[in-house]
């Protein structure tokens, strides 16, 4: 019974991740950066076109702009100060992960990025990423919008004539 209750509690965590969006240590908004400022997704998530993970930017990269941009409202000033402090003290920022695939899955962002580009000529990066991540560019807090379970992956692979051999994804 104890096991069962604990399991149910665990189920709630997952549910929270699909519906809502977790609080992050810094009130970073994609809305400002990706939509208002029109920064390309790959500018910060620079690994996405090259490697398996999309990667969160290094604090130093935030400082490209935030060395001078200190914010206009008290709220933004307060949040940007956190980034500047982190850099000054050489501390990493512990973001809360939103998307996660299990350890036995090999997911390569680069392959999906390249594949989707080839299939949708002229697609904007924002729309391309939105395939799986939803409209991140107009959100304030990022949450998971797609199941990203195996059925979901396989359906998409079938639809796009991508390989469905187990070893494609399972390591």
């Amino acid at each position, binding site marked *: 019974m104890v096991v*069962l209750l604990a399991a149910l509690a665990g189920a709630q965590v997952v549910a929270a991740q699909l519906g809502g969006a977790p609080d992050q240590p810094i009130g970073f908004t994609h809305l400002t950066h990706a939509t208002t400022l029109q920064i390309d997704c790959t500018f910060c998530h620079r690994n996405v076109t090259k490697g398996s993970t999309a990667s969160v930017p290094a604090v130093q990269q935030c400082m490209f702009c935030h060395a001078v941009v200190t914010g206009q409202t008290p709220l933004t000033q307060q949040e940007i100060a956190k980034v500047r402090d982190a850099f000054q003290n050489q501390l990493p920022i512990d973001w809360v*992960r939103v998307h*996660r695939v*299990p350890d036995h899955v090999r997911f390569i962002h680069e392959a999906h990025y390249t594949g989707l580009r080839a299939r949708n000529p002229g697609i904007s990066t924002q729309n391309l990423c939105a395939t799986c991540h939803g409209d991140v560019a107009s959100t304030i807090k990022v949450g998971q919008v797609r199941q990203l379970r195996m059925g979901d992956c396989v359906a998409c692979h079938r639809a796009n004539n991508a390989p469905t051999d187990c070893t494609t994804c399972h390591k």
Partner: protein
Amino acid sequence: MELTRRDFLKISGSSAAGAVLFAGCTPPEHEWKLESPVLLPEDTLTSFENWYASVCRQCEAGCGIITRVVEGRAKKIEGNPLHPLNRGKLCARGEAGLQALYHPDRLRTPLRRTGPRGMGQYQIISWDEALNELVSRLKDQQAQGSAGAVALVTGPLRGLEAHLVTRFARAYGATSLAYAPLEETALQAALKQLFGQDTYPVFDIARANYILSFGANFLEPWISQVHYNRAYGEFRQGQRTQRGYLVQVEPRLSTTAANADEWVPVTPGTEGVLALSIAYVLIDRRLASPTVAQAMTGGAGVQGLGAFRPEEASRITGVPAERIEAIAKALAERRPALVLGGLGPAGHTNGLFNLTAIYALNFLLESVGRPGGVLLNPAPPTPELAARAPASPFLEWQRFAERLRTKQPRPVNILMVHDANPLYGLPPAVQFGEGLKNVPVIISFSSFMDETTAMADLILPDSTYLESWGESIPDPGPGFQAVGFQQPVVKPYFSTRSFTDVLLTVAGELGGQAKEELPWNTYKDALRETAQRLFRLNRGSIRKPDFESFWNTLLQEGGWRDEQATAPRVDLRLPVLARQSQPPQFSGTDKDYPFYLHVFASAGLSDGRGAHLPWLQMTPDPTTTIMWQSWVEMNPRTAAALGLRENDVVVVESPQGRLETMLYLYPAIPPGVVAMPTGQGHTYLGRYAEKRGANPLSILAPMATAEGGALAWGATRVRISKTGRQYPLPKLEGSVPAVQPEDYTIIPVTDLRTR
């Protein structure tokens, strides 16, 4: 959240809540953390791998390695394809280097002893404190005019590191010694005598047609394992017109003998007589050049070797006369032939006699300076790289232990130990441990709490080779000039500093002559200076317009080599063969101690320095498949006669001491010989090594070779008795049924030319 697989199956099978439960298997909390790095170097991009070239320091060979680094952590070590010694290949010990880096029992910070010595009570101190204490103690000794009472003990060193340590010792006035448990000093002396060089020559195994090896276990941890294994592959199947033929002469069938075409069991210590008898046959049957034969017998001809007629030799060595004749004939027919001698013949009181007789055969067969024979290595490209601090022979260690114990001719007030563990390796008869009690201050620079370090008062832990700078001139070299460069592939994981950097810091603090002799601030500075010299040579594999690009390429490729820079041709003087046999001496009579004790280097643990790494502990011994333990090998018939069975715990007793270990029935050992691997029996060295197995070195008699004073580890006789207990040996054999079916005999295709 803990939900085992079995629980899950149980519950999901019996309740409708199955689907919910599946969602309940959430990953651990830390997996929801996504850390953004502070800085932006390309090489720490998430999920990207980088390969950094460096040098392996798991043994003294000096193979080149490349290390896979992902997000600042070393993940895999492989051989460096550009390194001429190992060309991309590596051995088990090299692969296991990662565990030394991320070992849970590494010494993480400087420590100062607080409790009684050897009780393991230490206090964590800062590097500043540790260095201050070290420097002030050294300054005190200087001020009292007793700098000579400081001793610095290291492992065998070569190149810049040797240069630094000897300079430091000289400038300060300290005694300096190097220690290796299975020292090759007898071999080095024999090779020096015959080939005139301090370094090893090239044994051109790859191009030989016939190899006669006297206990040279070149497919095992011996001098340069990967290099020789690589050559062996070529020797067997890589030559176009021939398949090399290997004959191994030794008392116990080793891994090398297992791979040989013929194994010749020989009475321990009589290898030299066998070699001279082969020489007798070669000369007597006119299989060798008469001029060479004349010179090598001092003009006496075959009469000079009368004592070694095959019939005589057969009686001494136990090898039938016909077999001696056959080997001599094959040697002469199948040229180029190469003759090698190793640990077995070296480890007797007549070690030098054995080895000179063995290696002299190469001259008689005119294999010296020929491809497929013995070739010489050139001197290193710069003078500081030529520096050497080879292992001091056993006798010197015995004298040093006596000095510690008796404080005569003068006491040792400070003993500094780096990368050496004499307390484990020296036979207890030497009483090194007793001597340590008389040393007021012991300072260790070890990465691990080994036996000697456990006696230390101050510990300044060394970084591992994957975290520090260095260089290595491979010895034996590949036949031309080559230097491997070692760079830190990851930042130090703990608060450790490399010994060489500490030495330079100390020299700087001491000032005066020490500072003059060692003017560099860090070891990297010294290395760059050496690299400058290489750069100015303007030859070899890297030629660049400016030094910085030379340096970068040097580190990228893991070293520098010049294949044109081979040894100059020298006409070596032909050695004169001994006329008289030199019989080996043994500790213990054959009546009281009926067995020769044959000690061999463990495949994984080597001389014991690999015992702390679980990967090496679980490396099966190739011929017995035993892991994690030590054992004593005995012929099954002998065992049956003594009423002993496999897995019996037996007492192995020598005139010097006793140990207990498990019996393994080894079908390939003569009835009068028992064999034990080195490496186990540690009282310290971390959780994987401690209190595991027994150390055969601990019952050796303090016998040395007659010339050179090397340890004669084959000179001890033992007796074996039952304890009545049993312990199942952890071994791979018998885990699964034999795969090779009975009707597949290993039948030969001998004619390679038809392919």
